[in-house]
């Protein structure tokens, strides 16, 4: 019994899942209809649906961020700005006409994603090849990205009026779940398969744990790190496309604003070390959902948007403390003391 308990608590995803459950339980008490799901026009509505819907972009960004953190022990803080660049490219390509896109929809999307990949390549070049600290290297696009986005949109908010543009960010007709959920799930699945079916997952971990040892056994650590940044750029692009579709426009100043912080937080909440090495994609996705659940539940409790960060900060502090090594040490020292005392008594 004790052993099983230890096995469960020792499981890497134990704490992230507990954190998520805690947030949801709290909601059940405070907002009774939190778990209520209604059907309207063949699609599902409710707080829960809203959470997984809104968490999609964050989960997508968290997937890219997880790999970047694992390989380079650093974070890509440009993901929000890169999303804005992608959104701008897509909106600029498709154009504001109500009836027709300027070019095929797919071409527009692919151009946008290409922009994201190029941004990722730039970051990867700086980090892997020039060995600039990830935070500093990605700071460049963090600041410049929105400028580039403005430049593409000529300082305007470009609206894409054609109705089908909204599909990516809302519902496909007759499908009960929102589209972003499918995109995020598909991306997670593909990423997981690639990591599983090639040796890439192990390489990323090896490079993150011990770069020098990795080099000596023939792993091209520069290439591996470069690739994770490119992939993170691609993820930012996909997230940018969804965000833009939600508002059917590109608002260079506001798309994905501050989302890089949530993405990093999602990785950390997922039980991943920001020091690189071992990682869990699923953990990061759970982390992303936890963050969104928190945001949504605070809204459900009528916390206003300007006060939201305070409550969020408090909860995050609690969750992060629960997962910290010091806290675990403290807990295990408590556990360790008990049997000693028992012995002394007997």
């Amino acid at each position: 019994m004790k052993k099983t308990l230890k096995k469960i608590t020792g499981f890497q995803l134990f704490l992230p899942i507990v954190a998520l459950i805690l947030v949801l339980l709290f909601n059940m008490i405070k907002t009774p209809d939190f778990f209520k799901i209604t059907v309207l026009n063949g699609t599902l509505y409710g707080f829960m649906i809203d959470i997984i819907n809104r968490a999609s972009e964050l989960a997508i960004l968290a997937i890219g961020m997880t790999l970047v953190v694992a390989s380079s022990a650093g974070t890509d803080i440009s993901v929000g700005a890169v999303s804005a660049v992608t959104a701008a490219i897509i909106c600029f390509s498709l154009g504001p006409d109500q009836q027709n896109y300027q070019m095929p929809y797919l071409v527009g999307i692919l151009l946008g994603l290409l922009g994201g990949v190029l941004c990722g390549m730039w970051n990867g070049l700086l980090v892997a090849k020039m060995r600039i600290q990830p935070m500093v290297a990605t700071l460049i696009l963090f600041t410049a990205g929105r400028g580039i986005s403005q430049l593409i949109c000529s300082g305007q908010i470009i609206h894409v009026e054609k109705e089908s543009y909204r599909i990516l960010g809302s519902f496909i007709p007759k499908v009960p779940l929102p589209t972003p959920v499918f995109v995020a799930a598909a991306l997670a699945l593909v990423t997981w398969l690639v990591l599983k079916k090639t040796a890439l997952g192990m390489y990323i971990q090896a490079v993150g744990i011990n770069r020098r040892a990795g080099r000596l056994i023939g792993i091209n650590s520069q290439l591996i790190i470069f690739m994770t940044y490119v992939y993170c750029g691609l993820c930012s692009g996909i997230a940018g496309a969804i965000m833009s579709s939600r508002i059917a426009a590109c608002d260079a100043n506001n798309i994905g604003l501050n989302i890089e912080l949530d993405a990093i937080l999602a990785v950390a909440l997922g039980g991943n070390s920001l020091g690189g090495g071992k990682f869990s994609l699923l953990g990061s996705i759970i982390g992303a959902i936890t963050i969104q659940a928190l945001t949504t539940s605070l809204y459900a409790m009528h916390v206003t948007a300007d006060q939201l960060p305070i409550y969020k900060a408090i909860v995050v502090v609690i969750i992060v403390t629960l997962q910290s090594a010091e806290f675990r040490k403290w807990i295990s020292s408590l556990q360790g003391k008990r049997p000693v005392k028992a012995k002394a008594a007997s």
Partner: protein
Amino acid sequence: MAGGKDHLPFFSNEFENHFGNLNMSNELLTMRHISKSFPGVVALNNVDFTLRSGEIHALMGENGAGKSTLIKVLTGVEELEEGEIRVSWLDHPLINHSPQEAQLNGISTVYQEVNLCPNLSVAENIFIGREPKKRGMIDWKAMNDNSRKILRSLNLSQVDVTKSLEHYSIAIQQMVAIARAIDIESKILIFDEPTSSLEEQETEKLFQIMNQLKEKGVGIIFITHFLEQVYEVSDRITVLRNGELVGESLTKDLPRVQLVAKMLGKEFNDLAAIKKETKEKVNHTKGVPLIDARNLGHRGTIKPFSLQMYPGEVVGLAGLLGSGRSELARTIYGADKPDSGELFVNTKKVKINAPIDAMKERMGYLPEDRKEEGIINDLSVKENIFIALQARQGMLKPLSNKEQTQLAEKYIKLLNIKVANIDSPVKQLSGGNQQKVILARWLSTQPDFLILDEPTRGIDVGTKTEIQKLVLNLAEEGMAIMFISSEIDEMIRTVSRMIVLRDREKVGELSEEEMTQDHIMAAIAGGERDEEDA
């Protein structure tokens, strides 16, 4: 040398006579009965050390001998646990609690890595923390003038004291550190590996300055791995080994061979002479060399060298720490990309830019630093074993789960690795078993040429013997093995030819007949070899 093996007249116990009586000679510093232990290790055990004014005193010993601990105790980096430190200018025992305090007490250290502020000017660096003031403001003119004066006394008038320090070479930066030490009137200067990052001329310059200081009566403690330099500049040598004092002697009275013997000690451990069993002498050095390096070199770590290795032979690299043993191996393997010379594998010229190129030529390299360069500690035992083979095959051709497990299990059995679960992180294993995991990693790639850099360091005796046996067996099967070890006994038992290195240079080779303790030590020490042979 005959008969003098165990009794060395060169090491006298003269200082025991005047313990506690400092003024009898010109003793600057006396450290008596110094002991210091860290959890699980006795770093210093009852060590005595005496420094006289106007002498350059070399402190010698291999890694872990206790040199740095002794210095750290002296300069207050580590707390003094037991013993007494006295300096001639204070009439009470000295205990420093920090390097700053030591500096105030007249003891300064010049480190290998210069610990100044590169973005401040030369003058600022000399006067930082004690800037000359005029009406509450820094008197820049006085500061610069004084700096110039000090540097001139060190024959460094070409240095512009207002330029930031980073403009100058490491050598000049060290000189600036010295200038600072002189100006605060240090009576004792400690040079901790000052020459390891210097070019030859810069070293000469440093020695000039050391001699100047010596003439002024400063006592200098000189720590280095370079034997040549010890004999070039030092007056007296103290040798430590395993935290204990081996002895003290005037440099001119201590032949190099003796010094090396004292540093390495004579560890006759209980290991049986494994090798001699299958002693049908095979001359390997015939036919086509497997590895043929011609003037291969890497600037700053190893001077160009040439060597051949033949299938089925075990070649040892002998030399003290810092002699370039590991660096030679790293250059062949491409861990340090060679910047001169050519490498032929099976008479085919190859270009090695990175370790992966060497692996494709069927080389393997077990690095000296298991923790930093070998083990990937959070990955499982299984992953740590098959990862090298996987890397050589390429990312897109992953080994199947079954292959991975079979491979790992095969070598775990072969090497008798004690592991409960092949999926548990490798960091949970003991040092010896971790080392075997890295061995398994390389064996699974089936190399033709395997470099083992200190494969038995920090490993229990039983495992040591196992690894030595394995090396001989592998060689019998036709693998060429390069074996690096600090333990001469182990090398003699294992290798069939020995390459000797000194001061980052290959200086010779010893055949099997020439490989005796005395011979090897003479070769490592250099200089007096001919005399010894005679």
